[in-house]
């Protein structure tokens, strides 16, 4: 590593702020990515300050106002700007609190899946051939099942709850990290800087985590952004099927499941939670495209 940075130092002064601003300049070339970033930040802030922003408790029921439409429709009032659900709960408050669950799911799943996947992938990349083969076969087996189906059965085994849904999703997303990490490790291992580190006496853990891992991170970061959105989608899908967060949790997928019977009577109880999922996932995917452009010149889309 020391060699590489001193070489580049002659032409471009590196260091933390420089690298960050270089990253930002690539990132902001993609206008969609910047929009995605701001939307994502907004959703994040809504999730953090949900208690302050939400006008009501998400579980509070105003029975006399059940299924009231949003304010711009006939019968709607400013009292409940986005209307109420079948139990008279304020849609806006529930949507705001729902952002928390989506974020929570995304962060936990990505952290768990990425940590596990990177460790296993590093191990596979450095391990002797037989261990590598066993690990990769195991990942093939997990990947043979459609991820949502596997997550669904896993949750059925563990018992339906948001926590178990997150465990299941993290487990089915993990093989992607393993494959990515292993592929980059195999690619990096043959390079001169690794050989020189080895010759200089670096031991295996140092070789794995300090020498090789930082150079494998770019595709993993892109994958992390993509699996953040997959995690949110899958958690919502599990919630929708009744195998994720349980009512009355204001999770967006669960809200949709609760509202299914009103599909032809009250459009807002269906449309709004789904729109919230779509906007969040879309903003993350936009950011993911920008991240790929900024971090991985080889993968640049256009």
């Amino acid at each position: 590593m020391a060699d590489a940075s001193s070489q580049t130092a002659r032409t471009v002064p590196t260091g933390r702020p420089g690298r960050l601003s270089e990253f930002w300049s690539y990132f902001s070339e993609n206008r969609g990515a910047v929009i995605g970033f701001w939307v994502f930040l907004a959703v994040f802030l809504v999730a953090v300050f949900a208690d302050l922003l939400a006008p009501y408790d998400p579980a509070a029921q105003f029975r006399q106002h059940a299924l009231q439409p949003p304010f711009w429709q006939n019968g709607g009032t400013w009292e409940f700007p986005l209307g109420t659900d079948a139990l008279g709960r304020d849609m806006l408050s529930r949507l705001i609190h729902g952002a928390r669950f989506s974020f929570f799911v995304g962060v936990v799943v990505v952290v768990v899946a990425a940590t596990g996947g990177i460790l296993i992938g590093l191990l596979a990349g450095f391990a002797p051939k037989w261990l590598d083969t066993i690990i990769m076969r195991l990942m093939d087996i997990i990947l043979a099942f459609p991820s949502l189906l596997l997550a669904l059965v896993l949750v059925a085994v563990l018992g339906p709850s948001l926590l178990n849904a997150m465990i299941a999703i993290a487990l089915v997303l993990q093989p992607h990290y393993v494959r990515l990490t292993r592929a980059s490790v195999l690619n990096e291992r043959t390079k001169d800087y690794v050989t020189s580190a080895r010759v200089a006496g670096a031991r295996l853990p140092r070789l794995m985590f300090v020498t090789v891992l930082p150079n494998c991170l770019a595709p993993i970061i892109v994958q992390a952004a993509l699996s953040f959105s997959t995690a949110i989608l899958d958690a919502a899908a599990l919630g929708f099927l009744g195998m994720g967060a349980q009512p009355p949790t204001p999770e967006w997928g669960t809200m949709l499941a609760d509202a299914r019977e009103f599909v032809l009577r009250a459009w807002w109880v269906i449309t709004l939670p789904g729109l919230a999922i779509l906007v969040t996932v879309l903003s993350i995917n936009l950011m993911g495209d920008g991240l790929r452009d900024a971090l991985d010149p080889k993968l640049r889309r256009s």
Partner: protein
Amino acid sequence: MLKYILSRLITFVPTFLGVTLISFAFIRVLPGDPIIVMAGERGMTEERYQELLQRFGYDQPLWRQFWDYFTGVLQGDLGTSFVTNRPVWGEFFTLFPATLELSICAMIFAVVLGIPAGVIAAVYRGKFFDRALMSTALVGYSMPIFWWALLLIIVVSGWLGWTPVSGRMGLLYFFDDVTGFMLIDSLLSGQEGAFASAVHHLILPSIVLGTIPLAVIARQTRSAMLEVLSEDYIRTARAKGLSASRVNGLHALRNAMIPVITVIGLSVGTLMAGAILTETIFSWPGIGKWMVDSIFRRDYPVVQGGLLLIALIVMLVNLTVDILYGFINPKIRKR
């Protein structure tokens, strides 16, 4: 080439064994005693319980149960459903055509729209069409399809009244299953309106299931086209004075198709996952709905067998794609 195919087949065996083991293991750790679940609310006497325990082999040690299951699987015996008392294998093949029909229509929808969209975006790179199409594709890619299904039901079935909300066929029509494919069977029955009804029932589910593959195919076609369009032989073709449509359509698209076909092959897993949601929402009597219902009914043999069969389908398709790819691209064989 033969060596390549053999090496692919050899890796298939341990994966198959692993998939069988996993689908078996899941069911053994599911909470609840399968026999008590089977008895339902009526309960049962102690003798009957013991008798059933023996009949299903649950009194045997686990490794023995797995061995019996595995040898059964190899002989095509996947057990019997607790709920319907019919063999899992038979149920699967009664329902599979429904899922296959839906998946094929979804894939046709995705390919017919996705490839032209990708080509147009690549040809007009950076222009309005490109931006509009790729933004749409990204929205499609980010779509929670269960919500998309409900939205389409609200607008197309509810407000416009164009399509039915659920099922595969109107109640007015009745005919025998010949192929299991509603489109073909309704034509064979010769009943007026039956085919139209089948088509009507298929439209919304196909759109819903095809949305994510459509977005993926459009994005993939675009990037593959962009890569090909920058190649020398395309410049040569242009320099020769060939028309733009001939260069883009014939020379470029044909070479750009290889990665696109791979993506199509590999989206079988996506389709199966999508079928779970789509079929549940549209009450489509296929494999996805069958699996969800069985999970909720704790119909262990069905969950176990269905999981195995679905994984097997995904594996077989991936294997085929791998081998085809080896034919097309000799470089792959060398790995």
